[in-house]
């Protein structure tokens, strides 16, 4: 009975969604005439190169046009990390210490992890430093770096990242992001406004505050994701 009801619900939801999206033609341009700029998408495509000299328009939107969203997004991650720590917090009893993974992993994984780990870190850093030029950016780069740490957690059962260091990195990166915003406010412009010179298109140092913010975001995301992984892995059943 309950299952039939659920199936009925799924059919209704599926039908409504299918009906709605059948009205939105796939692959059709909805941005209107790029030169007319009726939609935000057209405006961004048309103005990013000229006004910001940033090659990657998605980065320009994420960090500058809608930078306020990104600040919120970083806050969501920060909150998730804090919430996680608060939900899983237990006062440690004397003599108790964390056991992360009970068994040592295979030789193959250990050697491989040691070999790949530095390369993953470099790749992550490359991705967020070049966020304004190539696909990718702070979030992607941070996630890549955290995946490197995940590999290390899996390979070595007593591999630890100091919580102290993570706290410092994420706090300083967060403060940097907000400070760049407030800097704009203090210098008489608006919050998060691009107050630095934008340089030439496709240079590494171009786009004003955009690479600066994305580097801060990269560090912050990497630290937070690693922190989340570490906290989740620290879980130990009470015997």
């Amino acid at each position: 009975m309950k299952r039939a009801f659920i199936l009925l619900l799924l059919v209704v939801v599926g039908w409504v969604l299918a009906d709605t999206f059948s009205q939105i033609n796939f692959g059709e341009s909805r941005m209107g005439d790029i030169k007319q700029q009726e939609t935000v998408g057209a405006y961004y495509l048309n103005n990013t190169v000229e006004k910001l000299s940033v090659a990657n328009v998605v980065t320009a939107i994420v960090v500058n046009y809608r930078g306020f969203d990104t600040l919120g997004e970083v806050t969501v991650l920060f909150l998730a990390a804090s919430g996680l720590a608060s939900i899983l917090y237990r006062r440690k009893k004397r003599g108790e210490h964390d056991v992360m993974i009970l068994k040592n992993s295979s030789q193959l994984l250990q050697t491989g992890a040691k070999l790949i780990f530095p390369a993953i870190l470099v790749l992550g850093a490359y991705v967020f430093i070049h966020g304004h030029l190539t696909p990718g950016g702070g979030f992607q780069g941070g996630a890549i770096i955290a995946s490197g740490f995940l590999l290390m957690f899996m390979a070595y059962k007593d591999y630890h990242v100091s919580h102290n260091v993570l706290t410092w990195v994420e706090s300083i990166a967060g403060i940097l992001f907000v400070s760049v915003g407030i800097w704009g406010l203090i210098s008489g412009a608006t919050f998060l406004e691009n107050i630095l010179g934008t340089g030439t298109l496709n240079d590494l140092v171009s786009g004003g505050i955009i690479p600066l913010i994305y580097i801060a975001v990269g560090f912050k995301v990497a630290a937070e994701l690693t922190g989340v992984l570490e906290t989740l892995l620290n879980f130990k059943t009470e015997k």
Partner: protein
Amino acid sequence: MDPILYNKIISVGVYGSAIGLILIGLYAVLVKKHLTKIVIGLSIIDSGVHLLFIAVGFIKGGTAPIFSEKGIELVNQGTAMVDPVPQALVLTAIVIGFGVTAVALSLVIRLYRHHHTARIDHIKSLKW
């Protein structure tokens, strides 16, 4: 093949798989009894919605909205660029989805600690 028919098949495939993911996730959330599976269901719903975002922003024959040297060359030849806004939005949505999943998993761990089970039909202190 007839281009109109081809277009139709592609669009049914793209939208269909995204909506299918949403329905699969919804099914998992509503039917499954294991908390971890419910969390996985939530993530699947999220993936479906994210795919819809990308699908809606796509423009036929469009290239990535990046003005690298190659990109500028393509634009000068008259190639369209896809709508960058949904891509930017989906980045935010993915990060938020990650945050929610992390908190959800931590709650599952907490519930497992207290009840020594993660099955929803064994956890009923409050009314559901």
